[in-house]
């Protein structure tokens, strides 16, 4: 399908933003560790998409391109900032609590998970996010990260072990 936005149709570009905004922001927030940085990355990614729109012959190519650009933008942001956003990890979801007990518990687990994700290397974090959060295959993750499938398998396994140990430590503290 030829992209209508190539002809400069602003409404078509907005439609593409709406289609992919959850995917991009979800990954960006998970990889940067907080909502604010995630939103900055998502904005940068979509502006880049707008600039390079002529490259795409059809819309099916946009999804994987967005994953790759988002992951790289998150890497760049964290390298530039050189900060440990562990204190801010929590995705900003605390501002969105519904008050339900189940929701509170779920958010508490997500906060723990966010903190544990900070223990991972950027490659491990990206690999496990794309694999588990986005449900991509090992081959797709390898393509997005520009690495071998075997490397991705090792990175994901290492990430699982690190997460488990960190969550154990965090929950042990609370008890």
């Amino acid at each position, binding site marked *: 399908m030829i992209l209508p936005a190539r002809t400069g149709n602003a409404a078509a570009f907005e439609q593409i933003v709406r289609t992919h*905004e959850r995917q991009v922001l*979800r990954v960006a927030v998970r990889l940067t560790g907080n909502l604010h940085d995630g*939103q900055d990355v998502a904005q940068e990614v979509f502006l880049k998409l707008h600039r390079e729109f002529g490259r795409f012959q059809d819309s099916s190519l946009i999804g994987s391109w967005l994953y790759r650009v988002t992951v790289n933008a998150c890497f760049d942001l964290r390298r530039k900032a050189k900060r440990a956003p562990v204190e801010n990890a929590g995705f900003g979801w605390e501002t969105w609590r519904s008050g339900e007990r189940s929701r509170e518990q779920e958010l508490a687990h997500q906060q723990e*998970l966010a903190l544990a994700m900070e223990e991972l290397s950027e490659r491990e974090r990206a690999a*496990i996010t794309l694999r*588990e959060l986005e449900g991509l295959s*090992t081959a797709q993750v390898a393509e997005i990260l520009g690495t071998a499938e075997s490397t991705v398998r090792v990175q994901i396994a290492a990430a699982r072990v690190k997460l488990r140990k960190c969550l154990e430590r965090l929950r042990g503290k609370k008890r």
Partner: protein
Amino acid sequence: MKECPSLEALAMWVDEGEAAGVSASHIAECSACGEFVAELKADQALLRSSTELPEFAHAAVRGRVLGKVGRTRRYGWVAAAIAAAVLIAMFVPRTIPVAPVVLVPQAPKFAAVEPVSSAPSMPTRVEQARVRKRPAVSKDTSGAELIAALDALYEERLFAAPGAPGQTVITMETADPNVTILLLGETTGDDE
């Protein structure tokens, strides 16, 4: 019982099963390994069930992106308009009317010239100049004829006041009101 596999091997088993080199029977028989795998699966479920971000978070990004894209488009039109104006200014012939030049003859200030006794009598030359016939000039006049006419006019003006230094200005009006041709001549008064 076999030796327990590494934690990383157990983590791979979560994804790949026995392809990771860990037997399902060991997981079933070894309580430590079984418990660890169960915890890994719980973590996996937690990762997969990540809470969806609130709508306002997406709306904020969308608003910023579409706002910037819209501004870029508007600035693009402004830049294009400026470029078009520059091109038009460069290539369209200049037809802006110019105010006609008003010639104000200025008599130069010279010191009084003492009469020279050896100077030839000028009336002879004046007579010679005046007898020259000035060709008529019209829009059909050729270039050579125009030059001849100008030459005659120039000499006529120049020798109108023989022996006196001064400037001669001949003004020619053309069909184009914005174009005027000026011929400037000057004598120092000490010729011959």
